[in-house]
């Protein structure tokens, strides 16, 4: 349909516009701050090296999981700011379990992943319960739960820590080699020995499941309906309180997956140098990708790209790599503004088009009414 092509065009125009705006504003900031504009863009727009490509893909695969966790909530107007706490507490519990090496090989991995999902789900359930049962805004409760998760993990980590001679890092026991997920070596293609996380397939699978459940199942329909109009959802027979609980739990379970590629593909333990803030990055990726399974994939790659290439800013351009945070912030802000403008324009355009088509198609109907 022609209209759909136009819709897709509009949807793509928004992020493209946002990126351009971000580039322009960032340039202005660089000029104002007296930083070398040209060098900065040279660093950021350099073709990534093979090793960086792998890093981008790896980071994107993790961010994607986080974004999906956030998007499940967003789809029903729930703001799960707590993905951050959920993934950390879940990764920790999974790391302790997997590090104990009770189970052999793949079984250990699978059970640990399930445990991680369950932990994330339980942590998110608290916020869901507080919202449904006690009327506490999930925005506030998940923020508090993030802090509480931090200290709880710190407390448990102390008990669970395994001392490694000569190391100052605190970390759980290391997962046995046979329970690690082998990376994918694309040396033949890219020319780097750096490996892509094996669990990237988990991200892909989660993306497909997300798309399928949301668009093809009754549950997904109910979820979207609740997000679009809570009143209409109630009248259609959806128990919205139950939906809040279920979607929080699912979102938390998805959050539980965020740390898994890192745990089984890179760190093999949970320690105090673990990567933080993935939940908040997921929030941005979900916003940028409009909660769309493919949109978020592109957004995650863009995020990974910016993160990875910005590593060179200090060394090659002498500019702080925090610049990338500004770029990312402007992109998110301008993209949400652009989406909103486009959404309203789209609605108006469609209303006008329908009216026009009907006016052409049925002049006789008018005659009757007059």
């Amino acid at each position, binding site marked *: 349909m022609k*209209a759909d092509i136009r819709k897709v065009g509009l949807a793509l125009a928004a992020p493209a516009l946002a990126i351009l705006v971000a580039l322009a504003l960032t340039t202005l900031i660089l000029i104002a701050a007296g930083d070398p504009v040209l060098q900065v863009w040279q660093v950021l727009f350099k073709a990534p090296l093979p090793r960086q490509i792998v890093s981008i893909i790896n980071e994107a695969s993790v961010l994607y999981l986080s974004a999906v966790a956030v998007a499940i909530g967003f789809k029903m107007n729930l703001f799960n700011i707590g993905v951050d706490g959920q993934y950390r507490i879940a990764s920790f519990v999974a790391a302790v379990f997997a590090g104990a090496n009770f189970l052999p090989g793949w079984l250990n991995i699978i059970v640990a992943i399930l445990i991680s999902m369950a932990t994330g789900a339980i942590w998110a359930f608290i916020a869901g319960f507080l919202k449904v049962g006690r009327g506490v805004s999930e925005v506030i409760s998940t923020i508090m739960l993030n802090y509480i998760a931090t200290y709880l993990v710190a407390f448990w980590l102390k008990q669970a820590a395994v001392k490694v001679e000569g190391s100052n890092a605190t970390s759980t026991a290391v997962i046995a080699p046979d329970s690690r997920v082998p990376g994918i070596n694309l040396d033949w293609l890219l020319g780097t020995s750096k490996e892509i996380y094996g669990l990237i397939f988990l991200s892909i699978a989660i993306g497909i499941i997300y798309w399928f459940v949301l668009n093809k199942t009754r549950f997904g329909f109910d979820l979207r309906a609740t997000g*679009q*109009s809570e009143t*209409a959802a109630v*009248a259609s*027979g959806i128990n919205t309180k139950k939906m809040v609980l279920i979607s929080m739990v699912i979102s938390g379970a998805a959050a539980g997956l965020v740390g898994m590629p890192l745990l089984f593909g890179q760190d093999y333990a949970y320690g105090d140098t673990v990567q933080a803030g993935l939940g908040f990055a997921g929030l941005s990726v979900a916003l940028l990708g409009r909660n769309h399974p493919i949109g978020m994939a592109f957004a995650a790659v863009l995020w990974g790209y910016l993160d990875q290439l910005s590593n060179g800013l200090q060394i090659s351009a002498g500019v702080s790599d925090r610049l990338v945070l500004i770029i990312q912030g402007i992109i998110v802000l301008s993209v949400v503004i652009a989406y909103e403008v486009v959404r309203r324009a789209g609605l108006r355009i469609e*209303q006008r088009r329908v009216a026009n088509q009907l006016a052409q198609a049925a002049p006789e*109907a008018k005659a009757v*009414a*007059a």
Partner: protein
Amino acid sequence: MTSVVAQDPAVSPAQALAVELNGITKRFPGVVANKDISLQVRRGTIHAIVGENGAGKSTLMKILYGVQPPDEGTIAINGEPTSLKSPTEAINAGIGMVFQHFMLADNFTVLENVVLGAEKLHGIGDAARDEIRRISSDYGLHVNPDDLVADLGVGDRQRIEILKVLYRGAKILILDEPTAVLVPQEVNELFDHLRELKSEGLTVIFISHKLDEVLSVADDITVIRRGTTVAAVNPQDVTARQLAELMVGSELPSPQTEESTVTDKVMLELAGVELAAAGRANVLDGVSLTIHAGEILGIAGVEGNGQAELVEVIMGMRRPTAGEVRLEDDDITTWGVREIREAGVGYIPEDRHRHGLLLEAPLWENMILGHQTQAPNIKGPLIDARAARADTQRVVTEFDVRTPSILVTAASLSGGNQQKLIIGREMSHTPRVLIAAHPTRGVDVGAQAAIWDLIKHARRNGMAVLLVSADLEELMGLSDTIRVILRGRLSADFDPDVVTKEQLGAAMTGADGSEVQR
């Protein structure tokens, strides 16, 4: 068609015009709300504007009050050409408006609501309080400045709205459908106030589509149809029927009751249903009713007397605090909405935008809404999009939903077509019982007739229908039995073939014959 076509009203040159609108045009995406409208209001009169739902009355008044700018046309106040770019300018020009939907902040006190925006007049303290008390007693409005608005009923709110306007010293008052939510005594009281204002030289513009009211209070009447002025008439010269025909532009379709199809099979039964409200009298109080297969039970009543809650209790959206709801052999009192819908209860909600549709979803998804667990929409736990689309296409054809495609969003359809889609959706699942709340509200005449036919058709097929409506004509034309709801209680049965509007009106107000309106 009547012979009364757009004439100039009898304006005596001596009497100056308070308001003169010329060639006003206003377009919204997809609709022309006002098209070349002209309006002349004499100073010191009550001027009624009538027209059916969506005719463009409110839009015109919002233009006059500066809320929305006109696309074309001129405005003159007291003979002075004016451009009103904001309500402030309108207020300064001496115009005040009481909106169709009350414009009050619930968490504010009466005082705060009244002085808001007019703080310069008497401040926000005791001087303002005194002024409110003064106006209140001068016009008998019974308003206490320190009440919290959230605690007040509709009648009180209406009076606060009027007080707000008077407080600003308005000389021209616009009242947009002020009577829709009032009980008849309150209506009479309001009219007394209006006449008093008129006697003090104020000008009142009064919007309604209740023609008997209009005829009783107005000095001049302007009729608007489909966004244009079609006539300016003198109330002495027309009958209510003539006015109505002017409004709709054709012979009125009157719903006619057909021969009864009522069986003795009880489909829906309520016994002693109560719904408690915190700190107030029961919203529903001992409601018992029975609807048989093939029967339409009409519920009449002034808005806010419990009809919305009654529907919500039956649909399972609220749980009654006492009593029982039975669907044929099942006790459904504690069932959820979904179970009730699955058991064969169809639902046409009162507010289609809030309860009936996902405005930004395509039509075919809207066809699934409310029937997420029913064929043909699903295959096991999955949505069967292809079947749902085919079904939507069928409904669009069968129910004459005017749309270029089933892929457009619901928001892009007109109200009447949205409503036909909803009715088609509910009928497609051959419900045993249909709960229809104001099924033709805000729908044009053509669609109205079609919807009435659909409901009658359903009854012939043995459906039991609960019809809640504010339109007595509709109720009397369709129902097999009518009952009136007043303060959460149901009256005895009325036979629509013999009952008069006056009798119903009396029951609706509790006056029962003593306070019949003209």
